C-alpha cells in the first residue's frame, strides 16, 4: 500500500513521461505486463516485464516539408498515399471533442480528426482528401500494424508495449486519467471508488490502469467510450474512468455527471503509424512541428477544447530520438 502510494506520487509529480507511458500496458494485446516500478516497489508479480523504452521519443523530421499537392519524395509512403488520392485515417466516432459523429450532419469530426486532416492537407493541399475509418479501441494497434489505415489519431496513449508493434508520432496532446461520477457522489478521486463498478473502454490503457488502483475498483469493459456513458446512465456502473479529455466530452452530454480529482496517470497522445514506413512518421512529425510553430495547434485546440478546458496552453514539446 505504502509502496503503491510512492508510485502514485511519482506519477502525479510528473515523473518522466516515458516512464509513465510504460506504466500503461494495453489489455487487448495479451502480452500485457505490469509497470516496472510498481512491480519492483510493491512486490507484485507481473506476468511479464514491460519493454523499457523512451516511449515519447519519436523519429526526427528530415528537412523541409515538400510542397502540398506536388509530388512527394519518390518511393516514399507519402507518394503512395498521394497516388491513391486519399489518406486512410482511423479514429473514433463517439468521443465528443476528439473524434465523434455530429448527429446533425452525420460527419465525423473533432480535434483528432483535424490532426488527421492536417496530414491530408500537407500531402494533397486539401484537408478533405481523407477517408475516415472508425477503428474500435481494441483494434487500433492491429489495424495500424496490418496497414489497413495509414494513420490513427484516436486519443491513443503512447507506451512501450504498443511501441513494440507500431510507431508513434511525437506527442500532440497531453492527457491524464480522471474519474466521472454522478453529480451527487461524495467521491473526489479514484481511490474513493474501491469495490465500485468503474467503466472503461476495452483495449484502452485506462482499463489496465484501474487494476493498479488501491483499493481496487471493479473494472467493467465496454466496446466504446459512449457505451460506458450508456452503462453509467442505465445504472449498470457507478463511475467511468478514462482520460480527462474523453470524460469532459462525456460530462458535456450528461448534466447529472461530473469529473472529479486530479489526473492519476500520464497519457501522452500520439498518432500511430506503421513501422514499415519510418519516412511517413518523420513526415507526420514535420507537420506537427509546423502546427506547433505556426499556431495551427493552438487554434485547433481552441476550436475543439477551448470551451471545456480554457485557452490553449503551449503545445507539448516534441522529443526525438534520432
Amino acid at each position, binding site marked *: 500500500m505504502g509502496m503503491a502510494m510512492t508510485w502514485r506520487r511519482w506519477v502525479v509529480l510528473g515523473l518522466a513521461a516515458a516512464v509513465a507511458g510504460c506504466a500503461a500496458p494495453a489489455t487487448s494485446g495479451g502480452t500485457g505486463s505490469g509497470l516496472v516500478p510498481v512491480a519492483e516497489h510493491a512486490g507484485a508479480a507481473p506476468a511479464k516485464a514491460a519493454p523499457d523504452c523512451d516511449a515519447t521519443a519519436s523519429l526526427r523530421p528530415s528537412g523541409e516539408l515538400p510542397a502540398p499537392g506536388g509530388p512527394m519524395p519518390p518511393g516514399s509512403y507519402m507518394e503512395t498515399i498521394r497516388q491513391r488520392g486519399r489518406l486512410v485515417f482511423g479514429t473514433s466516432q*463517439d468521443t465528443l471533442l476528439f473524434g465523434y459523429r455530429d*448527429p*446533425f450532419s*452525420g*460527419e465525423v469530426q473533432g480535434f483528432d480528426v483535424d490532426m488527421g486532416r492536417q496530414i491530408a492537407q500537407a500531402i494533397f493541399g486539401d484537408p478533405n482528401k481523407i477517408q*475516415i475509418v472508425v477503428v474500435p479501441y481494441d483494434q487500433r494497434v492491429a489495424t495500424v500494424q496490418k496497414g489497413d489505415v495509414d494513420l490513427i489519431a484516436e486519443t491513443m496513449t503512447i507506451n512501450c508495449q504498443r511501441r513494440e508493434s507500431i510507431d508513434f508520432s511525437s506527442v500532440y496532446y497531453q492527457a491524464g486519467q480522471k474519474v466521472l461520477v454522478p453529480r451527487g457522489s461524495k467521491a473526489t478521486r479514484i481511490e474513493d471508488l474501491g469495490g465500485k463498478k468503474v467503466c472503461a473502454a476495452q483495449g484502452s490503457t485506462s482499463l489496465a490502469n484501474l487494476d493498479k488502483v488501491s483499493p481496487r475498483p471493479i473494472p467493467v469493459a465496454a466496446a466504446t467510450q459512449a*457505451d460506458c456513458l450508456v452503462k453509467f446512465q442505465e445504472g449498470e456502473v457507478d463511475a467511468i474512468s478514462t482520460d480527462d479529455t474523453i470524460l469532459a466530452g462525456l460530462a458535456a452530454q450528461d448534466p447529472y455527471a461530473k469529473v472529479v480529482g486530479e489526473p492519476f496517470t500520464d497519457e501522452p497522445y500520439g498518432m500511430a503509424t506503421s513501422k514499415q514506413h519510418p519516412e511517413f512518421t518523420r513526415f507526420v512529425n514535420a507537420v506537427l512541428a509546423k502546427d506547433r510553430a505556426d499556431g495551427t495547434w493552438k487554434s485547433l485546440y481552441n476550436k475543439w477544447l477551448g470551451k471545456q478546458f480554457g485557452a490553449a496552453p503551449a503545445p507539448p514539446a516534441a522529443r526525438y530520438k534520432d
Partner: protein
Amino acid sequence: MSTGVTLDAPSPAAQRGASGWLVRRSAGTTPGRLWTMLGGLLVLTIVAALVGWLAAGAARGGTKRVAGTTEPLLVNAESIYTALADADATAAQAFLSGGLPPAEQTQRYKDDIAQAGGQIAAAAAKAGDAGVAADAISTLTAQLPVYTGLVEAARANNRQGFPVGAAYLAQASALSRSQLLPAAQKLFTQEQSDLADDYHGARATAGAVVAGLLLLLLIGALLVVQSRLYRRTHRVLNLPLVAASVLAVVLFAVFTGVFTTQHSRLGRAQADGSDPVVVLAQARIAALRQRADESLTLVARGADPQYEKDFQDQQAVLGTDQKAGLLDAAARQAGDSGDPVARQRVVDIRSAARGYAQVHQKIREQDGKGQFNDAVRLATSAEPDSAPAVFARLDTALATAITADQRAFEEAAGDAGGGLGVLGWFVPVFGLAIAGLAVLGLRARLREYR
C-alpha cells in the same frame, strides 16, 4: 357337429335371450346361424359407424384448429418477427442519415412497434403457460419495452446533438438481434411445427381408413348374408336387407367423398397457402435483416465487419443468385401450384432481390473506395435507383405474395371441413337405419322358426 334336433322347436331358453342361446346352442343350426348373422351385422354396423363418427369429429376439430387457430398463430408469429426486423432496419436507417429522421421513418418505426406489441398480446392470449411458445412470448413481452426505451434514449440524445445517442441505438439494435428477433424466430418455428402436427391431426387418416374398411366389410357382410338367405329360403329378395345394403353403399360413398374432398382441400391449403407463406415470410425477414445490416455497416464505418458478413449469410439463405435457398423453394412451390400468377409473383421477387443486391454491391464498392458520403447517399436518398426505393420494391413484392398465399390458404382451408359437419349426423343416422333394417330383415326369418 350338427345335431339338427331342435330345428323346428327352439327351446324356451333360446327365446329368453339371444346371447345365452347362442352360447349354449350350436351356431350350425339355422336359427343359430341367423342370430350369428344378425349379431355380426349389428356389431359391424355399430363399430363402423362409431369409428367413422369419431374420425369425422377428429377431422372436423382438426380442420377447424388448422384454419382457425394454428395457422393464424403462425401468421401472428410471422408478423411479430417481420415488425421487429423492420423496426431494427428502420432505426438503423434513421441513425445513418444525419439530423432528425424523416417523419415517415419515425411513423414506420412506431407502426412496427404497435404491430409487434399488439401481436405479442394476441399470441400471449392463445399460447399456454408453458412450453417454447410461452417462453418466447415472455422474452418478447419483457424485452420489447427495454428496446423501445433504448431507442427513445437514442432519439432524445440525438435531438440534443449528443453522440451518445448513437451508442444507445447500437445497444437497441444489439438487444433486438440477441433477444427479440431470436425469440420471435423461436415462436415462428414453434407455430410452424404445431401447424404441421395439426395438419396431420386434421387429416385423421388412420381413423378414416379404418372406418372406410369397416364400411366395406359391412357392405360385404350384408351381401353375404343376403346370398345365404337367398339360397336357403329360395325367396327372391329380403327387402330390408337390400335397403340396408343400399344405405351402407351410400354411407361409404358419402364418407369417402367427404374425406377425399377434405384431404384435397387441406393439401391445397398447405401447398398453395401455408407452405409458401412460411417460406416467403422467412425470405422477407432475411431481406429486412440485410437492409439493417447494410445500414449498420455504414454506421460502424469499418469498425464492424460482422454486419456485412451477416448480409452475405442472409444472401445465401435467400439464394438470390444460386439454385438453393428460400427463393428457389418459393419458385418450386409456385411451380407446383400450377398458378401462373403465383409463379409470376416469385419471378418478381427474385428480380427485385437481384436489383437490391446490385445496389448493395455498389454501396459497398463506393464505401471501399473511400467515397463514404456517396455510399450513404445511395443507401438513404429518395432517388428511384437508391437503396430505399429498390428495397421497397423487394419488400412490397414479398408482402404481396404473402398476402396472396394467405388468401389462398383461407379459401382452401375455410371450406375444407364443410362436409365433416354433415358426417357428424349422417354417420350415426345411417348406422342406426342400417342396424334397424338388418334387425327387420332377419327377424322375419327368425319368426319362421317359432
